[in-house]
């Protein structure tokens, strides 16, 4: 039997699976494609940064590596434009991981705040490299072979592949959360030195998590490149990419499973919608900023945690249990002054 919680997952999956069958206007299915891409990226980002508390702001490096992998391999392997190119999506993910491992090895030698700065620095190195290297096409970018399936249903395959990435990222994140490894990431978030003193191999755990989270982001970048058909360094190595996925995750709930999914759904869909309907590229930034402030002030742990705590009355329950235990066993009476 389905539990109530699983029922919600199934319902949500059904809505997403049916979306392009119900909504056929390419304007909206395009929004759908970008939304699933960001849902996958935010979920994958959260699997490391959310669980470990190490906020990475250079994931565009992996997104860009995936995108360039797709473009360069499509061009140099003389691939026929079409669905066979989708096989390059996981290759993009693997290339992203190959970059992530050494970057993680260097960046994770330092603690949180310095780590953020290093990831930003690495990001700019990659952006500059993409602009200046010959094989990347520099600022004029790269054109992928032109896909010729019809305009009307052009978006549908991209949407479904993107949805597969979302499912993959979510299942992986779920598996990590249930594994010993995931528990170690959470322990690192709460008190890294203490975890080390309890035998957790913190360096290996952090580098592994960082590298794993690059996989789906790289795949998403590859899918993006195939979808838009043209890539430019400033768009695939875009600082707004990292700001966006971090904002989405914070909005939904950092370190939760559903938070990044919900955050990306809300922010990416509304951003694309506003851009399309008002054809004003910067309007959404103002709304983003305002929304973000509201959330940070009123529900600093994100929407999901806020709602869950209210529904389960967590604080009240905890207080009662803690107090009851103190009474039940006089051994454990509340600590007072010495």
């Amino acid at each position, binding site marked *: 039997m389905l539990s109530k919680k699983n029922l919600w997952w199934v319902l949500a999956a059904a809505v997403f699976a049916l979306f392009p069958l119900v909504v056929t206007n390419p304007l909206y299915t395009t929004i759908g494609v970008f939304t699933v891409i960001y849902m996958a990226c935010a979920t994958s980002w959260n699997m490391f940064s959310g669980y470990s508390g190490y906020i990475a702001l250079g994931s565009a490096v992996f997104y860009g590596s995936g995108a360039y992998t797709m473009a360069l391999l499509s061009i140099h392997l003389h691939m026929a434009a079409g669905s066979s190119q989708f096989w390059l999506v996981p290759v993009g993910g693997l290339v992203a991981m190959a970059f992530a491992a050494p970057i993680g090895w260097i960046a994770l030698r330092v603690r949180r705040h310095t780590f953020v700065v290093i990831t930003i620095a690495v990001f700019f190195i990659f952006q500059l490299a993409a602009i200046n290297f010959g094989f990347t096409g520099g600022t004029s970018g790269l054109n992928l072979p032109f896909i010729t399936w019809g305009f009307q249903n052009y978006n549908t395959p991209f949407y479904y592949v993107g949805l597969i990435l979302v499912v993959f990222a979510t299942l992986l994140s779920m598996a990590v959360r249930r594994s*010993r490894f995931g528990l170690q990431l959470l*322990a690192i978030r709460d008190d890294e*030195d203490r975890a080390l003193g309890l035998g957790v191999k913190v360096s290996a755990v952090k580098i592994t998590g960082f590298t794993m989270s690059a996989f789906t982001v790289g795949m998403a970048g590859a899918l993006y490149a195939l979808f838009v058909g043209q890539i430019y360094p400033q768009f695939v190595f875009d600082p707004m990419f990292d700001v966006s996925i971090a904002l989405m995750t914070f909005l939904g709930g950092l370190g939760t499973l559903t938070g990044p999914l919900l955050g990306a759904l809300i922010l990416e869909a509304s951003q694309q919608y506003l851009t399309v309907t008002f054809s004003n590229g910067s309007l959404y930034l103002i709304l983003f900023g305002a929304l973000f402030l509201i959330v940070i002030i009123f529900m600093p742990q994100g929407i999901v945690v806020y709602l869950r705590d209210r529904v389960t009355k967590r604080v009240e329950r905890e207080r009662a249990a*803690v107090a009851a*235990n103190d009474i039940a066993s006089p051994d454990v009476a509340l600590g007072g*002054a*010495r």
Partner: protein
Amino acid sequence: MTTLLSASGVSRAFGGLQALSLCNLDVEKGSITGLIGPNGSGKTTLFNVITGYVKPDAGTVTFNGQNITNARPDAVFSLGVGRTFQLTRIFSRISVLENMLIATQHDESWLRGLLRSKSSKTEVDNAMELLDFVGIAKLADLQAGALSYGQRKLLELAYVLVADPDVILLDEPAGGVNLTLINGIAEKIRTLNKAGKTFLIVEHNMEFVMSLCDSVTVMHQGSNLVTGTPAEVRANPLVLDAYLGGGDDGEDDLREAVASA
């Protein structure tokens, strides 16, 4: 009696401040050893050196005859040296039970952690048994950050016990908790000691130390000043001088302890 844990000639400076200078300490297997001394005399720093959190400038630390000087905290822990912190450190945003599970993998390779679930049935049973032992089993599913101060102290003691270390270093287990809990904690320590665990305890509460410990070392300005049975330490005039000279808050406790001797 054999020496289980020993520090010899350990020195460590922080900038111009000599926190430890040529400090020696032996912990006999099966003992409850006390480590006392005025504030700032270097007790916590010695703990940090032993457990790998701070590197000594000079000296050696041996455990079970093995040189563990400069070993990293995870390695020291895996060998069988567990500790608690003066300011209690728990993992506040995971559950109490999950706190207990973290120490269970100390001898597993990190790769294994990727492939296994966060707990096995035996691990959970063992964790619950220990939580029950310290009296907070009913709180297993709570987020650890919700615990009261005393409960946190008990949780920290319990999750160190999970890995079944040979020696446990406690940094002020009675600090900031009420009398009932202090007695409770002393009782747990006695029980565990009877079952064969060795303890090294830093504590300002003299009654606690004097009633519990087999041997007490007094530290003063980064060195070991006096070592002996509680009665010997009480009777030693150097000890009172150290406390009085240090202008320390443990002074009154010690006076009382000396007076009641």
